């Protein structure tokens, strides 16, 4: 019914996980036009309209005012800490999230279901609660902090605390995107590789990694994007020192406190655009990766 239309979907659903060979086929579900219209409408309603108001607010100021607002030294410092800490946190999650997913998929142990459920807790917890809990834990008189501070490791009220908070809120993204894909990789594949004389590292690098790489990247991108906008868990633990541990969302809030709506929107726009560009780049990377892995061998 949708044949000959200009709106051909590029790929079926589940593009993150499509390890099966692709082929052109007739769509099983009818009503593509209707559902596409619905998707666009829904996205517009929920995402584009609210975000566009940001751009309109920022458009109220002159170009010079915009540049001054978004490039003040104190604001620039927050970009460094926000994007830097988000990147580090997402990288930590990339490694340890994969590990967690691996253990959850490949091993059986008592209490596994509980561990599995625990992974989602950062999703469910109000982030401010997480921030207060982490601060209580890591402050100089906290359970953990009291042992770390004598060693010169200062986590609460320091940039390192921001990384801790962002790692906490980002963990489920990597685990939950990698887990199902890993589940799909059959154990026999590894056994076959082993029987052909591959070492464990070779098996991981040549057999497993290509299969889960797109999912890993997706998880990484989502954890990163989430961290960039995170506010609640960070403000309690960061110490919020200008030029050192202020995050960009806090600067936006401070500008709002001063009734500087335009300035706040301007900084928010920068945050959005940079995040969007990074997500696009990661998507492109993924597409490229998929082409590599789906190429005939």
């Amino acid at each position: 019914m949708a044949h000959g239309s200009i709106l051909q979907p590029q790929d079926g659903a589940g593009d993150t996980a499509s390890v099966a060979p692709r082929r052109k086929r007739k769509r099983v579900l009818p009503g593509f036009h209707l559902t596409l219209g619905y998707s666009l409408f829904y996205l517009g309603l929920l995402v584009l309209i609210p975000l566009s108001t940001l751009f309109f607010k920022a458009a109220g100021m002159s170009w010079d005012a915009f540049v001054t607002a978004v490039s003040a030294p104190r604001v620039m410092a927050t970009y460094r800490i926000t994007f830097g800490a988000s990147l580090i946190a997402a990288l930590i999650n990339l490694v340890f999230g994969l590990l967690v997913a691996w253990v959850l998929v490949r091993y059986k142990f008592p209490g596994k279901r509980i561990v599995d459920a625990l992974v989602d807790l950062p999703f469910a917890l109000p982030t401010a609660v997480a921030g207060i809990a982490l601060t209580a834990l890591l402050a100089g008189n906290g359970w953990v902090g009291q042992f770390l501070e004598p060693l010169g490791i200062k986590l609460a009220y320091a940039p390192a605390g921001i990384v801790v908070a962002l790692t906490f809120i980002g963990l489920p993204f990597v685990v939950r995107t990698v887990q199902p894909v890993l589940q799909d990789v059959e154990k026999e594949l590894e056994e076959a590789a082993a029987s052909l004389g591959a070492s464990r590292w070779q098996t991981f690098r040549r057999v497993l990694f290509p299969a889960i790489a797109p999912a890993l990247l997706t998880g990484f991108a989502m954890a990163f994007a989430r961290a960039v906008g995170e506010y609640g868990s960070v403000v309690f633990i960061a110490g919020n020192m200008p030029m050192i541990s202020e995050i960009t969302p806090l600067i936006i809030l401070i500008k709002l406190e001063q009734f500087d709506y335009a300035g706040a929107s301007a900084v928010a726009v920068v945050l959005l655009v940079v995040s969007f560009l990074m997500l696009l780049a990661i998507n492109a990377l993924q597409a490229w990766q998929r082409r590599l892995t789906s190429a005939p061998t």
Partner: protein
Amino acid sequence: MRTAKRHFIKLGLATALAAAGLAGIHLPAAAQQKIDLLNVSYDPTRELYSQYNPLFAKHWKETTGGDITIRQSHGGSGKQARTVIDGVDADVVTLGLAPDVEALVTHGKLINEGWQKRLPLNSAPYTSTIVFVVKKGNPKGVKDWDDLTKTGVQVITPNPKTSAGARWNYLAAWEYGKRKFGGEAGAKDYITKVFANVPVLDSGARGSTITFSQRGVGDVLLAWENEAYLTLAEFGADKFEIVYPSLSILTEPTVAVVDKNVERKGTRAAAEAYLKFLYTEQAQELIAKNYYRPTDEKVKAKYASQFPKIELFTLDAAFGNWPNADKVHFADGGSFDQIYVKK
């Protein structure tokens, strides 16, 4: 998956419609017999108003025979002002400083000009001041403002950009620096040294109190006098003590009726009575018991021992007025920003 989603959408729509319907039917009927007021306030008044509200409700019942419920909302003063501008239905605002109320005039057109003259004493029914809270025994020997610049003394204060209390802290310190270290240049140098000793900037007064008293960070907490007493009451006078500096600022939290909202809701009489009652002896007692400085002379005399006499200066005397103080110190590029961003 698809059916489940559709089901949820239906459910959501149904709930929303039901809620809207209920509200529509419910509200006018309720408004006739019972008045609801919303008091949007700032952080440290939480305890005061939770005690004041029943007192006023009782008074309202006695004088008018009607029932009244007052809800209260607390948070950083500036943030609270913004929520009202953005549409929270506040009947009265009782905020930490006049500019936050003034913002409702200039940004929201919610309060009429000249609000500060409508109630006695510039619409400040109670005052307070800024004091130091230190650990019991005062191990670092902090006696006055200049001790805050000593090496090894960590000072806890919220961020003046987001907290009313922090602005009072900052201005009190500035004026001390100005008097002691020779004018504006000396004050700037002094305040830079103070903030070099600040390890954490929370966004609100309550946050700073928690950082200091519960997380054990810092040696001196700059706090509202009433917040300092609450800290002692909450965590024990065996852990902390209050130090009065030689000079401090007279803080004037201001209150106002939100004209536009009360006119729409028809609650003007109740809202005005609510604020006026703050000036009565009964309410002033309660205010003093919550460690705010009463303005009623009789109550003031009764509680004189609770509020040590120190030299207090007013903001207007030292900085002219709020718009001026804001512009010089807290606007982007003001003296506070200059502490952190070296030119």
